[in-house]
């Protein structure tokens, strides 16, 4: 199991900076992973369940972007 080690630098700014960077990374990962899933044939419902959100929420957040990129679910 990979171990994640959080370094204690004693500077609260470092911790906060890590939070900001991780949030940004999480957003980008979500965009990339949702696109990959839909492109691979996942339904919006399946993506929503994997993310722990409603189908409406994930569809609202990602569908326009993916439609513009020509990525569409293969089945509903």
């Amino acid at each position, binding site marked *: 199991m990979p*171990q*994640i*080690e*959080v*370094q204690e*630098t004693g500077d609260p*700014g*470092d*911790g*906060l*900076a*890590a939070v*900001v*960077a*991780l949030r*940004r*990374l999480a957003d*980008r*990962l979500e*965009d*990339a992973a*949702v*696109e990959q899933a839909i492109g691979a044939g996942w339904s919006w419902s399946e993506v929503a369940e994997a993310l722990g959100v409603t189908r409406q929420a994930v569809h609202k957040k990602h569908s*326009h*972007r*993916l439609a*513009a*990129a020509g*990525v569409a679910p293969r089945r509903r």
Partner: protein
Amino acid sequence: MIRTDGEFVRVVLRLAQAEAVADQSPSIEAEHMLLALTAPQGGQARDLLAEAGLDHNAVQLALAADVERSLALVGVRLAAGRMPRSSYFPGRKPRLGASAKWVLHRAVAASRGGSENRIEPRHVLVGLLNARVGSVPRALDLAGIDRPALIARALAG
């Protein structure tokens, strides 16, 4: 309320919005305004940054180094040092984020007492450099920039 009138403010915000789009960011933040100042329209701010060795590429590298360092603190390393990419289509253009609003607040403060209280490029630069926290001061420190000296040169006009 932030006064966004003034020709240069409109120019820099438009440039910063383009930087936010290129960054796939949902909002315009301080780092996008710093990148915007390196454009030709950045005028005196661009010149001051260039004198300190900060062109667009150098600023991007400094900001990326800050993200990389911040992630490393919690044991995360990006492959090829890059965030994951995906198709990007802004449903609506990025809006002004909190850190950018702070920059404008400080730029207004820096412009007070000037000939027409007009916000000039150097005031926006001071607004960025006067930040004590956030990605911009961290990135500039990583790049070895002497921020107090740069602020002094900007205020000297």
